[in-house]
């Protein structure tokens, strides 16, 4: 298994497309930082205007923590696309390239090969989220400095003391990884169904957008469906910035996301084990 993991890692990270996600993050985050540097203080003033009438607020509220949290909100729509770019290519890329004929005639079970690919996909997803974390927190704290975090959540504002923020962000990124693993599992599953790499990317994004819209529709008719859509739980990372943290909600959301991932992985196993390689 170790050699298979090494092979799959080597193959994945030797491809140019694997770095598109990292390049996008490396460009986007500094751009957001610059824009926030130019315009950001006005954003905080606008958000705090109502509060400043009743409260006396001191200290650096427009800081690196706030920027990192804003970036998490902003980038979260685009990260699934970057993930499906790699996850969606894991199986369909081999079919397109004809390389299934090279690897699936070996005395290694298909499930072992599939598992190695899946683990590398999860590893890539984790790496991408961590690169977002590293860049947004690193650059943010370096440029804007530290301080307490003013977490805006719809019509509620939570002020989290600086001393708690490392752990809060650690939790937020860990939960973000869990939710992005579900996206990766979806793209990976679709990748087992088709023989070109574009299909899984488009299909994954279409499913996410449709589910996302349904999850956020304030209509009674769609309420019964919402618990069954993984997009309902994708914002679980925001729980890390609530006070107090709702651990039950976190466990419920993580459970739902993990169940989704396990189901998608099982479906991929079923499809891939019986797949006729005719390309």
């Amino acid at each position, binding site marked *: 298994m170790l*050699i*298979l993991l090494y*092979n799959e890692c*080597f*193959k994945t990270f*030797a*491809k*140019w497309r694997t770095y598109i996600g990292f390049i996008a993050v490396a460009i986007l985050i500094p751009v957001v930082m610059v824009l926030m540097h130019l315009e950001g203080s006005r954003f905080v003033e606008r958000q705090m205007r109502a509060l400043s009438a009743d409260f006396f607020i001191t200290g650096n509220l427009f800081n690196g923590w706030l920027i990192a949290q804003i970036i998490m909100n902003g980038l979260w729509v685009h990260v699934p696309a970057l993930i499906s770019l790699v996850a969606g290519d894991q199986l369909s890329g081999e079919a397109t*390239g*004809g*390389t*299934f*004929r*090279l*690897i*699936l*005639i*070996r*005395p*290694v*079970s298909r499930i072992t090969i599939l598992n190695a690919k899946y683990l590398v996909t999860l590893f890539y997803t984790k790496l991408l989220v961590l690169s977002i974390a590293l860049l947004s927190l690193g650059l943010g704290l370096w440029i804007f400095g530290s301080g307490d975090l003013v977490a805006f959540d719809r019509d509620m504002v939570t002020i989290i003391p600086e001393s708690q923020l490392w752990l809060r962000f650690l939790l937020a990124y860990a939960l973000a990884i869990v939710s992005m693993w579900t996206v990766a599992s979806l793209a990976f599953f679709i990748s087992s169904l088709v023989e070109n790499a574009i299909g899984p990317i488009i299909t994954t994004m279409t499913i996410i957008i449709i589910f996302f819209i349904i999850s956020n529709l304030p209509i009674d008719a769609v309420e019964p469906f919402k618990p069954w859509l993984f997009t309902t739980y994708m914002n679980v990372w925001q729980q890390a910035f609530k006070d107090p943290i709702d651990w039950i909600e976190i466990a419920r959301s993580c459970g739902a996301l993990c169940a989704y991932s396990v189901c998608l992985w099982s479906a991929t196993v079923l499809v891939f084990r*019986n797949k*006729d*390689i*005719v390309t």
Partner: protein
Amino acid sequence: MANDVVLRTENLGKKFGHRWAANDINLEVRRGDVFGFLGPNGAGKSTTIRMILSLIAPTTGTVELFGHSLLKKRELALANVAGIVEKPDFYLYLSAYHNMQIAGSLTLGSNPPKTRVLEELKLVGLADRAYDKVKTFSHGMKQRLGIAQALLCSPDLILLDEPTNGLDPQGMKEVRDLIRVLTRERGITVFLSSHLLNEVEQVATRMAIINNGTMIVQGSVEELLKAQANRLVLHVQPVETAAAVIGRIAPNVSLQITHNTISLSVDTAMIPAMITAIAAEGCSIFSVEPKHSLEEYFLTVTETN
């Protein structure tokens, strides 16, 4: 040992939708064979090879490799088997060396030693391109790389599906020579699928012919060719006199006469007497060509089928 069966298929068949791509295929490949698997394009050769290599699940029948059932003990069955199915495809963005490493490690369970990889690349004439990306390789080079990766794990059986497809005459000769080296020097059994009859005739010891998904015949190349009627082509002058002599000696034989050649099928025992009689009539005999070719045989059996 010589008669050990390394590959056996029983009633092997694959149905796509309502069409049987291969049906009731019963093959028996023995250790040391160069086994020619012949058939026209679309006959079901590649489907059969894909089933043998577990790329396609059979609809009916079984595959046994080295005595192990492919369905029940896949890892054991494929442990000593390598193959190239249709065209050899590789990770184009990786070097030949890394492609070899990936393919080799899947069989060996660890990365093959560098010297071993380079040794095989040298055998196929690619040692100097070992670290070049495969996307810069020509079709012929990829074909040779395919053979090198197949050899890397010292298999006892190699399945080659149309290995000379797309190669120039020089490349085709190189592959044929390589097949001879594999069997003679390394003792590898070769299963060679092709629609190029000349290719199989030159290297195969045993063969099977498949047409429309069904196996027509299987056996030793020599015996199968001997079994067909002896076909002769005589280059003779004057052709009318010679034809009259043949008609006298063998009145039931049908002749095809063109310009100064006579084609006929005749019992081997009659040939010396017939030639002597033609010469005695004062005819000039320029050549007598026996037609035992695989091509003739193949066309006969596939057309009959």
